[in-house]
């Protein structure tokens, strides 16, 4: 695919969505304060970038998100492999994990505030609680899906337990781990925004909430769009390149079902 065509494919959905949005706002059905136009939003974007407010809030939020994500993964990934590979730990942890799994991260906010006070500490805590379960759950599914024949084949080549884990279990679980990480970040964003609205005085979620109090509807959209753009950048710049070099290259995961 040529670069021009790739660029068009990539940008077309955004251009269409933007045009639709502009047309709707120009139709003037709703007052501006309820339905800001793309132009208003763009102006606010520029203002908030120039004043530095946007980057301050973004920095605060990203820090909480990445810290919460890292802590969640550091607990979930080793626990997942332990539970997947060891019967006794699975029997012990599985009921507890299932009990806690259905509790939304946001339900931890009251305790988060009591324990960490108002601020990003409480927000980070609920992000940890939100990231942990999708990562663990998907990793466990991945371990259950490893083909026994692959393990048996390397065992007849002389592989012991460590070699089986390193050369079979780890790579075989990567597609599911990536799914868990995607869901974990997505859940983390939800908790970030929800948490900041209730338990914090800065960050993107707080900025969105605060803008509403002053009827700055364009600023609300700026906050929302910033979250979307940050996620898009993470996906395109980090997650997808990792997948293209691993799971997709190995033929474990494909872009889509169509034939090349």
């Amino acid at each position: 695919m040529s670069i021009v065509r790739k660029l068009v494919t990539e940008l077309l959905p955004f251009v269409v969505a933007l045009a639709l949005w502009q047309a709707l706002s120009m139709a003037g059905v709703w007052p501006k304060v309820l339905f800001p136009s793309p132009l208003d939003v763009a102006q606010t974007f520029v203002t908030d970038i120039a004043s530095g407010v946007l980057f301050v809030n973004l920095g605060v939020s990203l820090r909480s998100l990445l810290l919460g994500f890292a802590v969640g993964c550091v607990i979930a990934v080793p626990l997942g492999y332990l539970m997947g590979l060891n019967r006794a730990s699975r029997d012990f942890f599985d009921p507890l994990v299932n009990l806690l799994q259905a509790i939304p991260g946001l339900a931890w906010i009251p305790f988060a505030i009591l324990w960490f006070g108002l601020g990003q500490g409480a927000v980070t805590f609920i992000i940890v609680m939100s990231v942990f379960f999708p990562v663990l759950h998907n990793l466990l599914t991945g371990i259950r899906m490893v083909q026994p024949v692959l393990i048996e084949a390397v065992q007849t080549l002389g592989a012991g337990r460590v070699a089986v884990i390193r050369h079979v279990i780890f790579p075989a679980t990567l597609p599911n781990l990536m799914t868990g990480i995607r869901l974990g970040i997505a859940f983390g964003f939800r908790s970030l925004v929800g948490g900041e609205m209730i338990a914090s005085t800065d960050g993107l979620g707080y900025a969105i909430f605060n803008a509403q109090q002053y009827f700055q509807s364009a600023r609300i959209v700026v906050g929302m769009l910033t979250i979307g753009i940050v996620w898009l950048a993470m996906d395109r710049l980090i997650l997808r390149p990792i997948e293209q070099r691993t799971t997709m290259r190995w033929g474990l995961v494909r872009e889509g079902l169509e034939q090349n």
Partner: protein
Amino acid sequence: MTDLLVASGVSKTYFDTVANDNVVALDGISLSIRAHQFVSVIGPSGCGKSTFLRLVAGLDRPTAGEITVSGRKVTGPGADRGMVFQEYALLPWKTTAANIEFGPRLKGLPAAERAAITQRFVELVGLKGFENKYPHQLSGGMRQRAAVARVLANNPTVLLMDEPFAAVDAMTRQRLQEELTAITAHERTTVLFITHAIEEAVFLSDRVVALSGRPGRIVADLEIDLPRPRRWDDMANDPRFAAYRDELTRCIHGKS
């Protein structure tokens, strides 16, 4: 010549969760295999021939009896008993070369030696030019060549093969069979080969052991005295080939 692989009174009973009952898969199999022989075990589906191979590989434990390889009792899987599976079982995240290099790498051989071994077996199975391809980029026949090379590169005492050509098309299968006889004759590999195809067993083997239907018991044990190298074109017109085939068919199906 001494026996390389000895199975004595091997039985396997397992619990069938669907039938909710114990199933006797193998009943008192005793079998000795000499070094450098190509031995096939044939039998109808469910006769326990694959079970027997898994017991030799150490992937399952016998209910009774024991198996020794080079005088050592089999207690678990090991590099001396490399296995080729019907479904190839190549590691999707490793290239052809890395799959073939896997065993030597586990043994801790130096890189230069590993590279030489890999190169030799890549060429032996005709995969030159495909070293850096991943398994999903190879055809079924090529994948099975790579799987055979992977085990041979590990220099096993005995090569175990579980219906390795059942999943490839008929033309590819015949080519792979001819290549396998040439390679194992050249490498003087001891092979224990499982198949339900009688002609395949006769074509490949120095000796064919036939099992009855469940529970598996040995009903025939035949030396195949045909000249090597063997080619399908020659076999088609060889009355001895047909005679072996017919005799084994009679033994398995109990017709006279």
